[in-house]
């Protein structure tokens, strides 16, 4: 009996909408190859991204120390984060400072170099590659270690300052400057927004500048009235990407402070705090809650940027 009832059940809906199965199978036969090629991505997405995300959401409502089974605690982790965790606000302040200063500086620097390179100079590919190099190396441990050496009390930077008679502090281990060294490191890795700016600059029709020159507009005026407005979609794109990157920044602070976020928590990035909770103190549930809050914050900033974009991004060609 069971076999038949399953058959019946299978047949039942098809009688109602006779068209749909054939449409589906048609779609399938047409696209199966495509989906097959997408399979590796699907496997990665569901297995390595979506699956862990869902379990992390679950874990954020538990106490989980890896050794014993997760223990459901409801919203307790979130409650503690927002009401009784001074390190949450400290790390948030550090991260926001980093985002607010590093992103605009980096974009300005990238745009400046892109404008220089856009003058049709000789050997452009070489310069482009050289300027892009720091971005390739940027996230690597080696650069963070190099930074540590450069900005130490007896590092290269202070040696250079000494030539001018300035005695510099130990930049990386003084709480007044340590975060700034990370901002400078981030700005130095301006390569990828620069490449995108450069591509954007190439899209701007030359005849606009010719017309403006004929009308007697200065280079400065041309930049403000032609270049920048026409570049706003690219600025917007770079702004979003770099903001998200800045919120997620981890490696430099981890290496330079040895994973501690010190001196005096001055480089305790949000991601570093999250890492400490998860892998120094084995509070996976709490760390998961922190991760979801970061996702919400980044999501909020991105949505906010999109909402305001209609006031300053020009898509009219």
């Amino acid at each position, binding site marked *: 009996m069971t076999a038949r009832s399953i058959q019946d059940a299978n047949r039942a809906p098809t009688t109602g909408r006779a068209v749909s199965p054939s449409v589906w199978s048609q779609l399938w036969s047409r696209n199966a190859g495509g989906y097959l090629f997408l399979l590796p991505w699907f496997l990665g997405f569901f297995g390595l991204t979506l699956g862990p995300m869902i379990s992390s959401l679950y874990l954020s409502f538990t106490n989980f120390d890896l050794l014993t089974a997760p223990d459901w605690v409801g919203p307790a982790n979130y409650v503690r984060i927002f009401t009784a965790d001074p390190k949450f606000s400290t790390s948030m302040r550090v991260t926001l400072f980093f985002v607010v200063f590093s992103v605009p500086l980096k974009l300005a620097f990238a745009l400046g170099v892109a404008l220089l390179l856009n003058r049709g100079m000789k050997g452009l590919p070489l310069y482009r590659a050289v300027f892009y190099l720091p971005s390739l190396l940027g996230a690597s441990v080696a650069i963070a270690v190099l930074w540590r050496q450069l900005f130490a009390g007896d590092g290269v930077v202070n040696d250079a300052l000494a030539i001018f008679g300035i005695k510099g502090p130990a930049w990386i281990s003084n709480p007044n400057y340590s975060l700034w060294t990370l901002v400078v490191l981030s700005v130095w890795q301006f390569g990828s927004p620069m490449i995108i700016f450069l591509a954007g600059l190439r899209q701007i029709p030359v005849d606009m500048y010719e017309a403006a020159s004929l009308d007697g507009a200065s280079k400065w005026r041309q930049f403000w009235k032609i270049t920048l407005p026409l570049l706003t979609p690219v600025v917007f794109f770079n702004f979003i990407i770099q903001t998200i990157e800045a919120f997620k920044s981890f490696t430099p602070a981890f290496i330079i402070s040895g*994973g501690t976020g010190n001196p005096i928590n001055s480089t305790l990035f949000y991601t570093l705090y999250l890492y400490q909770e998860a892998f120094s103190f084995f509070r996976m549930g709490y760390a998961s809650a922190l991760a979801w809050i970061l996702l919400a914050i980044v999501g909020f900033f991105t949505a906010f940027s999109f909402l305001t974009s209609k006031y300053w991004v020009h898509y009219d060609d």
Partner: protein
Amino acid sequence: MSISIDRRQFLMGSTALLAAAAAGVGPAMSQETRMRLIFWGGQARADRTYGVTDLYTKANPGTTFDGEFLAFADYWPKLATQTAGGNSPDVIQMDYRYIVEYAKRNAIAPLDEFIGNGLNLDDFDKDQLDGGKVDGKLYGISLGANSTAIMVNTTAFEEAGLELPTRDLSYADLPAMAEKWNSSSKRAGMKLWSDYSGGEPGLENWLRQQGKALYTADGLAGFTAEDITNWFQLWADLRAADVIVSPDDQALDATDAIENTMITLGKAPITYANSNQLIAFQAVNKDKLTMTNYPRIKAGSGGGHYRKPSMFFSLGASSKQQAEGAKFIDFFISNPDAATILGVERGIPCKASTRDAIKPSLDEQSLVALNFVSNLGDLLGALPPSPPSNAGEVGVALKTKSQEVAFGQQSPQDAGPAFFAQATEILARAKS
């Protein structure tokens, strides 16, 4: 000719292989025992450890080892992940800080059944044996006794014409010593002493000399807010008397990694560390090093130091080869050839017979370590209970708070109660 296997042949072939493997009649590997071994440490420790596993394989053909070693900070996430996945190694290096947690969660196995039955602990130091017990059962075999110690750059002291710190040195002697140092040191910018106001072991030693403790047996703070104020004040006075390095310099040593300590960076001829680390410190220092005890709080006060099991070997609770694992641990701590390879790199061996076996082959600095740990005398106190589970977080908080005082953001009078409140909150959270 090309070899072609159709699907059916392939299926039949692989099924046969599977069946053979399941029945245990598979290829020649069936007799072989593969042991998984995990430990933290550097290359020097790994070379010594693998020297012993090779020796064991030679003596016990058929047993091979898959070893894995990581830095201390990376080790614990890895071990916890493997344990969570039900995939813990057979032989696990364990730390005094974590052994209670792992034992209470049944992640490591009790070893009592193997004593006298594969594991010979006849002349094993009693304090080291007790250090591996949790709730009366033995969960870890100490691989060496260890004590906190200060590393001393003897070359720098000789250049300055100063006598090396002795075992009677007290914190009160430091300002006078620093005065001599500052006038006669040949090293530009080098101060006499490291700033260890953020060092948990330093605070513990200082508290123990007063008959107090860092943590009580029930995982509470063994100190008062006033104690912490006094501790920070002690260092503030040393700072004011130009004894210790600047806070900028001290902050370079963020994680106690040997390369960034004040002695290795050449900022001070003194660094707080552990007795078994002399070998590792000497490896990255050109000047000749020695070691001695932490300063006393006043003449004649002792009991600050203790012989800590530097690390244990434990057996994974899910290991199917526990008897073989116990046999290997026994070999590791008893075999004279193994002991000669290991030296005192993991601390002073806990068996008297093993100590005797290695003595002739020890170099000068290993002997310094051996003599130091063996002759603590009145400096030696009882082994404190294993620290509570949130102790690591308290240690981090102490370091941060000490920097606030050192950089002048908070006075010792404010920092004492503030840190006490923080520590109390952290420790209370471990209980809930």
